[in-house]
């Protein structure tokens, strides 16, 4: 675990320093925090804590926020010629891989949770008196568990892509394509369904327990995370990576 934390420490340091000085870093994160932590909650008011919007954003945001960071994880090391030196240390392949994944997940989930927490503070400050605005249980679950699973998926996909890509740019492009397929492909597929199939699907959705659907989707996401991580660990082999340097 110590070795995973060592990589984690280095990755977070690099992520923090990735965008130059403090001013640049603040300028990068501030608009995101303003949009999701201030502007949108003030527009939506109660709907922000009661409706599904915040939960949906919490699940989608990791893909938008952390794409660059995860694409950089291995492709960046390769591009900046630091990978071989890292592989020549005593660290095991698995610890290097997991340390990087953990850093990507933490970075992504921390940004989402910070935005969501800020939105709650914004709403309550704007409201002034009266009972506190709090997220509905199901929305809170989407923010806590959904964002975590989504961040894990982002990290798993990103790290896997980054392992195979020769450059950071290539990794980022591949990651964008996969994200597009995930988020645009689904709705497009639904659109393309024949009317009878759409109707049947709607009927199913009307009859099933939505909580159950949520649980099933979460389990599917978890399984996908595990499969991608296992594939990543299997692919992360020193002797193989050295030949790709």
């Amino acid at each position: 675990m110590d070795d995973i934390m060592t990589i984690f420490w280095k990755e977070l340091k690099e992520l923090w320093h990735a965008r130059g000085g403090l001013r640049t870093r603040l300028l990068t994160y501030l608009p995101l925090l303003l949009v999701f932590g201030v502007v949108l909650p003030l527009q939506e008011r109660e709907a922000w804590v009661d409706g599904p919007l915040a939960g949906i954003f919490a699940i989608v945001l990791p893909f938008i926020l952390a794409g660059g960071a995860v694409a950089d994880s291995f492709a960046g090391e390769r591009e900046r010629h630091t990978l071989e030196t890292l592989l020549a240390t005593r660290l095991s392949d698995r610890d290097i891989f997991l340390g990087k994944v953990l850093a990507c997940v933490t970075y992504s989930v921390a940004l989402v949770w910070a935005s969501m927490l800020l939105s709650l503070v914004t709403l309550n400050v704007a409201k002034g008196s009266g009972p506190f605005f709090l997220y509905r249980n199901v929305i809170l679950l989407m923010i806590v568990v959904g964002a975590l699973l989504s961040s894990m998926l982002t990290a798993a996909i990103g790290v896997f892509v980054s392992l195979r890509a020769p450059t950071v740019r290539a990794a980022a492009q591949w990651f964008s394509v996969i994200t597009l397929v995930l988020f645009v492909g689904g709705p497009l597929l639904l659109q393309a369904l024949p009317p009878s199939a759409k109707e049947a699907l709607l009927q199913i959705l009307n009859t099933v327990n939505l909580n159950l659907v949520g649980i099933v989707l979460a389990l599917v996401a978890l399984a996908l995370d595990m499969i991608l991580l296992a594939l990543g660990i299997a692919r992360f082999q020193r002797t193989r990576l050295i030949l790709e340097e």
Partner: protein
Amino acid sequence: MTYAIETKEMTRYFGDLCAVNRVSLQVPSGAIFGFLGPNGAGKTTTLRLLLGLLDLHGGSATVLGYDVATQSHLVREHTGVLLEHDGLYQRLTVLDNLEFFGRIYRLEKKARQMRIQELLEHLGMWEWRNADVSKLSKGMKQKVAIARALLHRPSLIFLDEPSAGLDPVAAVALREDIQNLAQREGTTVFLTTHNLAEAEKICDIVGVIRQGQLIAVGTPAELRAHTGKPTVAIYGQGFSASAVEALRSLPQVCSVLFHPDHLQVELEPGAETAPLISLLVRQGVEVEEVRKGRGSLEEAFVTLMREEEQKSSEV
């Protein structure tokens, strides 16, 4: 004698190409070993094999007593490296870089901080500890990379072309640093280079590799004696074509190179210089100065390469 590195018929292929061909080598503990060879000779592949970063396709190798095929993690635990690229994280400071590698090697916080300070002070880099690595010159980065390689007091360090790309002053400074640190810490150094002057100055033993095959191993003096012939530089005036021809006709003279102010003469081993001078004086040359020299490692290296090339073409 104990050996830090021992290989027996170590072999590695890349497709049909045999990058390292049955290399058998012994590097004594505490020595500075120079691994010489032209580009693409197999130096870096050998180093990667010794670190367990590539699989062996034949033969065996032990580093510090650990088998590179089955105990490569232990090899990496007890060795330090400076590979072709410095491997430093440009976005991090000098201290952060060393802190990271100190953590990797599980140095206690206090010991880690003291060791970092000790090495940076010794290398004259302490003042730069909080600077981003991206702000440092190439020579400074190499110094930080050397500090990183030595951080956990490894018994053996691998340096792959450490002075490549450095200006002559920085290269000399780095060479001295390597020598001093290796001596002070009793570390074995495995150095790959094609800078022969560097190898001659700091290496106790050198090995020459060509097309994946180890063609010579010995001290620089042994290599020079074996392949580099004695030379003499004769300075003066009035070097005529007939004088040079007369010199070339002597049996003890291997070759004569004519320079504007002197002649560079390569001799057979054990040849006397006096008959050459007498002959030149008789030919009307005004000899001003005679400098005797032994073949340099560079000359020995070139001779070895030519001999091997000749053998290959004969086959």
